[in-house]
């Protein structure tokens, strides 16, 4: 007569892909691509990198199921001044897909990240 608790919850992508180590690589690569982009690069020309990184770490950690709570309100506030349109959002998504591919994310994991970001399109695009 014993009692035990077992967890069958799948590992979050954040842990599956090596936590902050992989996230660091993804964020760095993604922003290099974003800065080089003719469609959206200009948005980040004079951005405070420390603040931007802080947002990105929290946002991507949340999207990957890591230890972060990044509210939709905060996401909306962070992007409101950019006044992004759908083409610019699409460009960011495309660059992220390339970045995740290069970071060896499995197609289904890549899709789940993009799905999570697409779900917030209405918040980011104004």
């Amino acid at each position, binding site marked *: *007569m*014993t*009692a*035990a*608790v077992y967890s069958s919850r799948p590992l979050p992508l954040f842990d599956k892909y090596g936590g*902050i180590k992989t*996230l*660091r690589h993804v*964020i*760095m690569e993604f922003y290099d691509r974003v*800065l*080089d982009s003719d469609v959206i*690069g*200009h948005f*980040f*020309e*004079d951005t405070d*990198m*420390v603040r931007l*990184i*802080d947002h990105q*770490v*929290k946002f991507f*950690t949340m999207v990957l199921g890591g*230890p*972060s709570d990044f509210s939709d309100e905060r996401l909306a506030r962070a992007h409101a001044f950019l006044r992004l349109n759908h083409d610019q959002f699409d460009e960011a998504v495309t660059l992220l897909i390339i970045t995740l591919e290069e970071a060896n994310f499995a197609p289904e994991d890549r899709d789940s990240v993009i799905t999570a970001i697409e779900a917030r399109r209405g918040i980011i695009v104004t």
Partner: protein
Amino acid sequence: MFPENISARLLKSIGVGVCLVEADNGIIVFCNASFMNWFDAAERDMLLLDAVPDLAAEDIARAIDGAAIEVKTKIKRRTLIIELSAYPADFDGRKLIVFECQNVSRLRETEAMIDSYATMVDRRTRDLEREKTQVEKLLLNIMPRTVYEEYMTFGSVAPRLFEPVSVLMLDFVGFTQMAAAADPTVTVAELNDIFTAFDRIGELYGCERIKTVGDCYIAVTGLPHPNPDHAVSTAKCASKMIRYLQRRNSTHQHEWRARIGIASGSVVGSVVGVQKYIYDVFGPAVNLAARLQALSEPMEITVSDTVSSELIDDFAMTRRRTESIRGFGEREVCCLEKHPDTKQITRPQVRGNFGLTKRDALPVANRGTSGVTTFSV
């Protein structure tokens, strides 16, 4: 000269930015490709301060003193952070300053990332600690600390025999009717207050609540730590519970009357269940305490013969008799003499007894045809 030429070529090709400046006037005499890539205005014979607008004259003095100076420069859309170190040098009698520059942008970004992540993790750790405390409090409500610790260490709890212990079983007279007659939320809130008070009384006597089932309160003394005075402690605890109810009844609208049974013996304690688990005790003492509780008059404490023999020095006994108890046969039982205070306390006026008289109400457990309450635990 060959060695100087190869040095110059090396300086041009390395990733570190190098700039040689006249010490007395700050004019650039040489800068390599990396330096010019970061500071595109830089060229020979121009002032270093003009080539690096973010650099101040006092920064140069600080750099010569050994400080690492950081300046920002923009290449296309990216703002780079360049760290400058300065070293005085002497070349054929000319006083020069060698500036060594490193691109530390990635390093600073990584530091910012780690800071951000660390803040996030700290916050999450605090949240988890808070949740852990809540979970611990909840689990400690349903199992003793030693059992909880075993559960947390091994993920399971092995059944354990405790002997001897005393089991206290308390049940209220007519609770079901009370709940039906009055606002059930009020009744349950009062029950909660009373059980909380019982828990505190139990703490004083080492009589640990095992569980409550509806209005039935089950506690054990001598578990998980042995207590040679388990019978006396349990009787004192039960006596205090009755006195608490007496005092409470004298000042509250609703009257709560309990029956208590106490039995001694061995019990097995274990966590039962996997998803919805509860710590419970099993054994003849538990069943006997339930039967004795049913034999009690309201506000009376009935004890078994084994318990009464332990109480001889501390309690006066009354109503000593032999009862036929289902599952136990003929057993000698008796009741604790009521405390003098208990006898004196009378209700100033009856403000509400939910319309029940003394023996109207059945306890929640089923009363068998023999007149002995059957109680399954």
